[in-house]
């Protein structure tokens, strides 16, 4: 049964096709968390100021709290759950752990996704470029230093083909 205010959407999420029933009022964040059960992406502010809800949408990092669920039709999405290759962690994930770049961890999924989008475009960023790119991801615990170090380590890994 379809209605004008609800719909079925199909999107490619973390490489697999996902079909979801959504209310048009839902944001992509709600669709991922509540409809798809992918709770890795977090809610922090719902106004695009904290980046905790960051996902990759068609190759670009966006705040999923400011994307309507309906817009995800035919989109290609990557969430934190899609970063690892099976049990093989992405270099960013591995380096975040090694550098203690997370304390409470609530900002970590958004940061990992945003950092991945940076390294996909700019494999050799300066510290300033990393800080500028990640300015939309608030972290209240770490003070950012270890995060920047982890991103640099991961960049080195990725340049070396790891």
């Amino acid at each position, binding site marked *: 049964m379809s209605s004008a205010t609800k719909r079925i959407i199909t999107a490619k999420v973390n490489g697999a096709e996902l079909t979801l029933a959504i209310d048009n009022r839902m944001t992509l964040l709600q669709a991922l968390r509540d409809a798809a059960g992918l709770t*890795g992406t977090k809610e922090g502010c719902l106004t695009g100021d904290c980046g905790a809800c960051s996902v990759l949408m068609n190759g670009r990092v966006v705040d999923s709290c400011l994307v309507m669920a309906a817009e995800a039709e035919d989109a290609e999405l990557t969430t934190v759950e899609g970063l690892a290759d099976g049990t093989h962690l992405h270099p960013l994930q591995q380096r975040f752990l090694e550098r203690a770049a997370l304390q409470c961890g609530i900002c970590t999924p958004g940061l*990992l996704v945003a950092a991945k989008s940076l390294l996909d475009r700019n494999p050799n960023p300066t510290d300033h470029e990393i800080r500028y790119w990640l300015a939309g991801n608030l972290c209240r615990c770490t*003070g950012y230093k270890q*995060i920047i170090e982890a991103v640099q380590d991961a960049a080195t890994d990725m340049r070396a083909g790891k």
Partner: protein
Amino acid sequence: MEPFSHPNHGKYKVIGTRPIRHDGEDKVTGRALYGADVSFPDLLHGFVLRSPHAHARIRKLDTSKAEALPGVFAVTTAVDLPRLDDKIVSSGEGMENQKYLSDHILASDKALFIGHPIAAVAATDPWIAQEAVALIEVEYEVLDQVTDPDKAMADGAPLLHEKMTTTILGQKEAKPSNICNHTRFECGDLEAGFAEADLVFDREFRTRTVHQGYVEPHTATALARSDGQVTVWSSTQGPFRTREQVAAVLKRDLSKIRVIPMEIGGGFGGKIPVYLEPLAVLLSEKSGRPVKLVMSRADVFQASGPAPAAVSKLKLGFKSDGTITAGKVWMAYEAGAFPGTWGSTGALCVLAPYRVPHALVDVYDVLTNTPKVAAYRAPSSPQALFGVESIMDEAAQELGLDPIDLRLKNGAVEGDSRVDGQKWSRIGFLETLDAAKNSPHYKSPPPSGPNQARATSIGYWFNAGMQSSATVGINMDGTASVVTGSVDIGGSRASMAIMAAETLGLSAEEVRPVVGDTESIGHTDVTAGSRTTFATGYAVYMAATEALEKMRPRVAKLWDCPVEEVNFEEGAFRHAKGKHDPMTVREVAPKLPMTGGPVQGQSSVQPKQVGASFAVDIADIEVDPETGKVTILRYTVVQDVGTAIHPAYVEGQMIGGTVQGIGWALNEEYVRDEEGRMINTGFLDYRVPTALDAPDIETIMVEVPNPGHPYGVRGVGETTVVPPLSTLHNAIARATGVRIRNLPMSPPRVQAALAEQTARPVPASD
């Protein structure tokens, strides 16, 4: 308890290494479950109706239309809460009067702050819940409101709790007022002290309300059953404390309530009080289904517990050689809508770092029509030390002394008395000052360009002990598990594994740390007060030691020798006369079933010899005089950390606290309009530092082991939020000649202060 000696300090096998935290993989893959991630097929969504007025009498409350809306399964108001007695109870980190607890959860006759919960609903989807709340009819009689602590103290200020009178120095005042607490300490002879002084500073300072700014909003889910058994899933800093509060508000036995702490997205003290849990329980009881409530970001700012604004009037006297002779302190802290006692903590902190032979300290907690304040990292210390450290810097300038030397001269050491009469135990203040003085940063040439300067300042927090429990279970293969009740906000469970591993002679990877809930471990107080690695670590050590003690007779049985000949040393059981090869825990464990059965150690502690932690900051800055913007060129934090169990996480606490302090100093504040409404209720205009604002921060760890802990642990988490307020204030003063005694030192304030100075030249000494 005998003080611990630390012969192995610096030579530990596991302590001081940097293993990957055990919960790390789940956190980087999105598998870790935080409070809002809980779900059920029959979950209902809760929504809260909050007062739009800062101060109002509730004349009428009609929820019938909300209850009738299809999709609404429950509505709750204050009539559902039992009346509580006028009784002082423990509040997790202090004491409070429980009769105010229920009014805080749901307003009964008065709304006392904007955001004060009036009612809550549970519905099948969040949009219906929101619509239902809009259908609740409330008739308010709006009253005059007051949001500034000093205005609230004045005669004729609107009274929040009409019948509340203050106890001043043991006497109950006759007239009701908004002063809910007054703390006084005195020592020596103040007049004589000031008479001895060659130089006296009399200054006033002001800080504004700020928020802890954790990225995860408050959330609670509850499931009530017909037999009265309730489960609550919450992002809380302490499941036992949450359970106590819920039980107190709802008048239940503790055994009827199970609190399961989910992973938590930051707390900093703000997730100790309960806000949503009792509402979730009531709604679940009325609907028969699980109910989830999540605060919006605006609700977090307006209706959780920020850190108090404060006014301080400080007078300090110095001899010309820099010795402090006397100190007079008057402070008023914002309490918010319900009584609290953070001011008394401020009274303990304000002069504590120094030897002040003659002092008078008066600190007031004042009710205001703002949300009830809660702890925020070293609560009350930043507000108190901001002013003191400003005066110390002025004195150093005036007397021509190196600012670190001035602190060295007056800095407290073991045995010195504080104004409350307590004496310092072993602390590392002087060592930390020395390390700062000898740091690469301090030794480098200070910045010399226009509007550039270097400054330094200090901070401290006395840390807490309180209660913790732990069990250490020996697995059949000799690996181990350690279960504690301490919520892991910043990597503490890895430290528990490290301390257990060190004790048992295992590696950190061989020990599995578990955070239990209220049904699976003994009473444990909150993860706060920088107490977790200290007190819960203490319990872990004791539990691991008990496990080893239980294994000794087993080894004796295997070796067929008296138990006195078996000792655990250097990671293995050894025979006193070397007659048998040593056996590790891994080798003993498989033999446990045949020598008497499984082994587990357990411990519940309340360690008293807590170690305070001091920090010294050095900042190089540049001020843009045209815009008032401050750029930090270089920043170093030096802290006495006792023993760094996991150095990467200790560094993380140092840096994280410093960046919060920088935000507090330069940009963060609650902006309120004439009706007391906060107008910057989001992360857009409540400006916490982004990655581009936070400078790179150099950390220097000084280790002066605390004799009160088996591994020398001092709490480290909180101290570093304190120094940046005064360090940046001092640096701005040295760069521009202007002391901005009003936080935050945001660009418009700096620019206005500089413009005023240019217009009115400042005399050589002010």
